[in-house]
């Protein structure tokens, strides 16, 4: 490999076919005279501009597109040399750091010698060692291209905002399960808004047996095993539900607050009593109607109950997981949009309460397709205010444009899977921790189950990883129409064969 050009922080390196460098690889450009080395990452591989290649290709296609048939008698065997030159590639690289006396610095404000520099591949383990990525609480994300493991430190996701994104079916949920189970292993409290009911079985192995986390997983399905009695609710939480999820106007809100306080004082805070109080409320008809419709929405959600034995105390689950770690999976699978918002408002309100009163130290919140249940104002809230209370969010989405730009700018870590759509890549490339070219170039070519890890967890050295397999019962599989038909067909074919 030879250093060809440097423009800004982009290096162009000439590489020959036997040197097979690929996108995502790291190169070490050592200048012996300067006693320094540049660390650069290949972000694109192009054909080197070799003179005469066009003529070479053109003359093989003179006959209306059909290659001309023939024989080359090449006694000196020049042909391999022609191919060698023709297949030379140009590696477009981004400088990531300067290595000087075993110390990394992010600067690249020096120019290595074009003639004297030696260029070699830098293995990922060596890079991770130099960057000091591994810590005391390792999480093995997967294997890199050179078959080494990418191990990140759990403390690097502590107090951070993370985004897991990529197109459908490329392994986002799988990675979030991996992170989640690793965090639980380190006794962390994890709350998951599970839109498709695929996290409920992370306590089970793929063959249906219980795994080490089984007792730490608390799967709560609203209106089934997750119901709330009104007297367990704080007024602020209820008001949050009414105003943000059910859009109760200001005047009616005031009236409701008065009603609620009144019932609480009398110790009659039940659904039935609340309905009765609204019916008998002596006020403007429109206010009563507004309150009545919201009341019925609360009742119809099935999330609220007057039966104390039915009600699940979220606090209890949180407390259980406080010491030994655990996950509270809020299964939103069969929940309507409004009910989903009611549940999310409740859970978030409850979390803030618990964190504010130091009942909980911190919570890792995993939110799948959050735009489907998170109100607009919560985005900034979660990223800025709630972070200080100790809610550290990981957004998981296949529609990156549903996450606001300011969230990308503040994201500490991004786990990026394959995207082919330019628009999607543009959105993700707004992340502050990496340059747009790297995202556009590498993410477009990522194979399934491979992710580009960016941010604090890898000390800002983007690394492509094949996410490791997990022995967890899969629940997120798409239901297929033809799968069953095929199975039935193959079964009947099998029985027909046996009959014969």
């Amino acid at each position, binding site marked *: 490999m030879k250093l060809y050009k440097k423009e800004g922080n982009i290096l162009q390196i000439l590489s020959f076919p036997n040197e097979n460098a690929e996108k995502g690889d790291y190169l070490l450009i050592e200048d012996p005279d300067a006693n320094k080395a540049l660390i650069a990452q290949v972000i694109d591989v192009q054909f080197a501009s*070799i*003179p*005469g*290649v066009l*003529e*070479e290709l053109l*003359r093989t296609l*003179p*006959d209306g597109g059909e290659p*001309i*048939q*023939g*024989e*080359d*008698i*090449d*006694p*000196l065997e*020049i042909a391999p*040399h*022609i191919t*060698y*030159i*023709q297949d030379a590639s140009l590696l477009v690289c981004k400088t990531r750091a300067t290595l000087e006396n075993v110390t990394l610095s992010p600067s690249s404000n020096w120019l290595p010698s074009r003639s004297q520099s030696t260029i070699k591949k830098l293995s990922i383990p060596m890079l991770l060692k130099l960057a000091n990525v591994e810590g005391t609480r390792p999480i093995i994300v997967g294997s890199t291209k050179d078959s080494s493991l990418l191990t990140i430190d759990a403390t690097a996701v502590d107090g951070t905002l993370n985004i897991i994104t990529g197109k459908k079916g490329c392994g986002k949920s799988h990675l979030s399960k991996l992170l989640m189970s690793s965090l639980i292993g380190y006794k962390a409290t994890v709350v998951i808004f599970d839109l498709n009911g695929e996290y409920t079985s992370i306590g089970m192995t793929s063959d249906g047996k219980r795994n080490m986390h089984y007792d730490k997983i608390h799967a709560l399905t609203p209106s089934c095993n997750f119901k709330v009695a009104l007297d367990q609710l704080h007024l602020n939480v209820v008001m949050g539900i009414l105003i943000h999820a059910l859009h109760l106007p200001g005047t009616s809100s005031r009236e409701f607050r008065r009603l609620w306080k009144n019932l609480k004082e009398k110790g009659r805070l039940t659904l039935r009593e609340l309905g009765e109080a609204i019916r008998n409320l002596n006020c403007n008809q429109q206010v009563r109607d507004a309150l009545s419709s919201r009341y019925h929405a609360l009742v119809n959600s099935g999330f609220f109950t007057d039966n104390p034995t039915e009600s699940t105390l979220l606090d209890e689950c949180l407390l259980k997981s406080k010491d030994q770690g655990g996950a509270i999976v809020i299964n939103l699978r069969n929940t309507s949009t409004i009910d989903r918002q009611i549940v999310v408002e409740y859970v978030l309100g409850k979390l803030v309460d618990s964190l504010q009163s130091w009942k909980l130290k911190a919570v890792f919140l995993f939110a799948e397709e959050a735009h489907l249940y998170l109100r607009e104002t919560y985005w900034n809230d979660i990223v800025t205010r709630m972070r200080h209370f100790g809610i550290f969010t990981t957004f998981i989405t296949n529609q990156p444009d549903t996450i606001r730009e300011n969230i990308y700018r503040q994201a500490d870590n991004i786990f990026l899977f394959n995207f082919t759509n330019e628009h999607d890549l543009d959105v993700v490339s707004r992340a502050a921790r990496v340059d747009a070219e790297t995202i556009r170039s590498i993410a477009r070519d990522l194979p399934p189950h491979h992710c580009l890890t960016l941010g604090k967890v890898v000390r800002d050295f983007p690394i492509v990883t094949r996410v490791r397999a997990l022995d967890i019962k899969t629940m997120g599989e798409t239901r297929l129409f033809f799968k069953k038909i095929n199975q039935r067909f193959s079964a009947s074919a099998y029985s027909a064969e046996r009959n014969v």
Partner: protein
Amino acid sequence: MIEQYTITTTPKYNFPQPTIDTTLPQRFLEQSLHSLKQVQHQPFQLNQQSFQQFHISEQHPSNLRLKRQPIDLKPNHQETTIAAVDTSTIKIGETSTGIIIAIRGATTWKQNRNYRYTRLGPFIFHITEENKNEVYNTLERAYFNTYYPSNRHATPHLMQMPTRLASLLERWLQTMLAKTVSHGLILFDGSLTSGTFDTPVQRMKDILSLARRNRSTVLAFSKMTSLRVNGYLITDQLPNHEPPYLLETTGLRFKPPTVVLGGVYVARLNKANYAFRLDIDREIPLQHRMAAVEKLLGNDLYLQGYPETLRLAHILCTFTANEVLAMKHFITRKHGIQIINRPDMHKLLFGPFGKGEIS
């Protein structure tokens, strides 16, 4: 004793392949390797003005006339094999004692509506004042068992060696085609002028006679000609007539020993406004000459009025810049020849006005 059957491999093409005399390529290879060994581990200077050398210029004959009456041609689609040959040479660089050159030849043919080719080379030679005679004479001897008197003066100048060696390979390839193609048309690049240093009269006569023996006709197309009538190039004096047609020339005589072994025509083969000098074997009756051109019209494609088979031969033997780089790579890697960058004196002295030697 068990009688063993003669097993022959399935022929790759329908192209007739009788016993081919491979002596010349073998000698080319030997001489190439031998010459490169002499230069091993020496520095060499890349050619600063790479140029591909082709053909010799023509002399100016007197009494040349161009008949104004065009000979109309009608394409004859009777299936006929069309074969063509061309060679190319390039100077790759210089050493302290000589030059490094590469030579390659190509034969193409159209049969059953398909084009096929055989490419021979590249052969890389290190030619010095010391070895030039040895290289040339060894190849000459390998090529001709017969002695051609005109060759006794044929000690080439060092700078002429690339074209002389290419010419030798070209004549050998032409001979091979003349031997192997029957009832076909053989297209040469250039003219049928002989009696020059690199084309003795007898050598060309032998090639033409071999072709005739196989009932093939040799047609030689010149891309450029310097033949003039009344001061104008013969290819520029086209009548207002619907192509395809030929214009016949008469009175073409060169000073001995130069002889033209073909009838010389101006050929305009399609509506493109290009005409070429066409030499057709003179020993062939006039009627057959026209028939040969009509078969060519009916069997080959034409771009700018030039036969595709010949165009392909030219394209396939030409060295691209990529190949030149590859040959430099080969020389460096296989023979340990160091590339040195001697300053280009033209550029050094005249800066942007130094355009290099005119090739």
